[in-house]
């Protein structure tokens, strides 16, 4: 979930300036001056040790926002050069995340640490409990020899003063699959063999060190070249902006999109197919079925949970069907998915009908950068009126609710919810798969993000507010038939 921290504020600030720079007639030069505008000479240094470090981090963010990896960067290269290259680039890079080394260095690797609360007591329970001989009392205080410590934490429970603590690394703690760890040089490294692109580390890092590699420039370029750029927005996006989705459509068209389509439209297709599939599976004696629309979950299945595959619905995601419909209507269009999360970037990479991803933050920055006031916009209708059920896909309970709405009364599903992928809930899913039964229900709705996509890492709204805005929309929408 996005938590509206200061680092998110800075990220959006930079994106807005990048849009402004792109719209100016001196893109490279104005991009290069962003760090200096944001941290001018003699300004207060709000967060880091010095202004140079702050500028360096801003520069790195801009590089990621222009779509480049920060790993193995040539430090002598100037922002101008990156800006130029971003204009030339034909294809996006593969892995969606990159880490800002200078921002990441601020946080210490996970270890067991003796605080000042240590009384140097005579009992020395810590020293006695440590099986590895890593603790020694010196200078009246317990000391841990890092080379011997195995991080087992026995001493933590042994100390009667609670003087020993485990320093956690927020990204490591947040990652449900152990894919990120602080390397020897003090910078976090993501193991992309394991990473499911859930984005939890993006939201968890207090320094904002994990950045998405944006495709913003590629999209802006396509719009500028006069291509038919069609936006397809996820149901959760409806809750990320002020005003109605009809005003949002006008605003996006003003920002340069050729047409705007709700992914809720494709959700209606998913619901129809998935409810039929559910009936069929149950008739064939399946113990349960899980939903298949969450990209984070699909990445998890692929990399860590293949044993559950046989229980996962074969129905495609709402985005898949939406993109199919759009490409049929506009074969020459450049399609852009407006996303609440990082995970969908992976789904898009393997779908030829979708060209780019723009997350909610980036769309927000585009509207701000182009000074488009959503609340001043007229309503524009959608060619297809999506259903209440389709529009509720981004909220936990929405997908199972939609599927259930089409099932006959005597064959309703008993839904159960995995509301957020965590180490714990992944264990639960593993158990369902292993036992071949799920005691909690027969339709398992899996959402990688807590609360559903409105809790996605790239969202803008407080999830409570997003839910409220979406509920207003549902009241005006009709049931799926």
């Amino acid at each position, binding site marked *: 979930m996005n938590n509206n921290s200061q680092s998110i504020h800075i990220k959006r600030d930079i994106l807005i300036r990048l849009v402004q720079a792109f719209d100016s007639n001196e893109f490279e030069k104005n991009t290069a001056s962003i760090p200096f505008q944001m941290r001018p000479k003699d300004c207060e240094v709000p967060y880091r040790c010095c202004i140079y470090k702050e500028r360096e981090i801003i520069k790195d963010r801009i590089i990621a926002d222009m779509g480049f990896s920060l790993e193995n960067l040539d430090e002598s290269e100037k922002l101008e050069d990156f800006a130029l290259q971003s204009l030339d680039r034909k294809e996006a890079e593969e892995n969606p995340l990159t880490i800002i080394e200078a921002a990441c260095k601020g946080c210490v690797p996970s270890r067991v640490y003796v605080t000042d609360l240590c009384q140097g007591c005579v009992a020395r329970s810590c020293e006695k409990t440590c099986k590895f001989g890593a603790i020694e009392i010196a200078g009246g205080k317990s000391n841990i020899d890092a080379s011997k410590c195995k991080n087992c934490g026995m001493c933590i429970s042994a100390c009667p003063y609670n003087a020993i603590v485990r320093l956690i690394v927020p990204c490591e703690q947040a990652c449900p699959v152990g894919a990120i760890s602080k390397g020897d040089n003090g910078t976090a490294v993501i193991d992309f063999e394991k990473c499911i692109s859930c984005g939890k580390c993006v939201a968890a890092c207090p320094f904002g060190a994990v950045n998405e590699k944006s495709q913003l420039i590629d999209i802006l370029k396509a719009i500028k070249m006069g291509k038919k750029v069609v936006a397809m927005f996820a149901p959760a996006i409806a809750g990320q*902006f*002020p005003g109605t989705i009809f005003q949002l459509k006008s605003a996006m068209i003003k920002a340069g999109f050729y047409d705007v389509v709700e992914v809720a439209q494709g959700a209606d297709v998913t619901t129809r197919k998935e409810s039929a599939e559910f009936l069929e599976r149950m008739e064939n004696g399946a113990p349960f079925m899980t939903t298949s629309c969450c990209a984070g979950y699909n990445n998890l299945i692929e990399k860590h949970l293949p044993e559950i595959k046989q229980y996962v619905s074969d129905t495609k995601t709402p985005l898949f069907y939406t993109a199919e419909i759009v490409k049929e209507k506009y074969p020459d269009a450049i399609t852009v998915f407006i996303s609440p999360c990082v995970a969908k970037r992976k789904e898009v990479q393997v779908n030829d009908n979708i060209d780019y991803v723009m997350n909610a933050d980036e769309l*927000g920055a585009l*509207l*701000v950068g182009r*000074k488009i006031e959503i*609340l001043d916009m007229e309503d524009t209708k959608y060619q297809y009126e999506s259903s209440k059920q389709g529009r509720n896909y981004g909220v936990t309970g929405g997908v199972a609710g939609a599927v259930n709405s089409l099932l006959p009364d005597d064959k309703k599903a008993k839904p159960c919810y995995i509301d957020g992928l965590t180490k714990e809930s992944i264990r639960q899913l593993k158990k369902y798969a292993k036992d071949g039964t799920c005691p909690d229900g027969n339709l398992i709705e899996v959402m990688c993000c807590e609360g559903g996509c409105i809790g996605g890492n790239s969202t803008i709204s407080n999830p409570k507010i*997003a839910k409220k805005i979406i509920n207003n929309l549902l009241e005006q929408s009709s049931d799926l038939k």
Partner: protein
Amino acid sequence: METIEVRICSGTTCFVMGSSFLNELYDLIPQKYGDKVIVKPSLCLGQCSSDDKHSKAPYVKVDGEVISSATIEKVLLAIEKKVGENE
């Protein structure tokens, strides 16, 4: 006694810069001040338009006074001050 008016901006810029996280104020303020203080959403307060003014969004107005980079704490503090002046 005059009522104090609080306007939380929900223009595009302020919303994108996080004004939905100020929404708790719609509950907090009436709880704390009853009808002495009224709190309403607002269209763009006109603070964000030039150059890099978006940096300091979200904006809130407390009795006409503009609060930039608004947080719940900052807004409550400003109200507290106004209430003090009014008494």
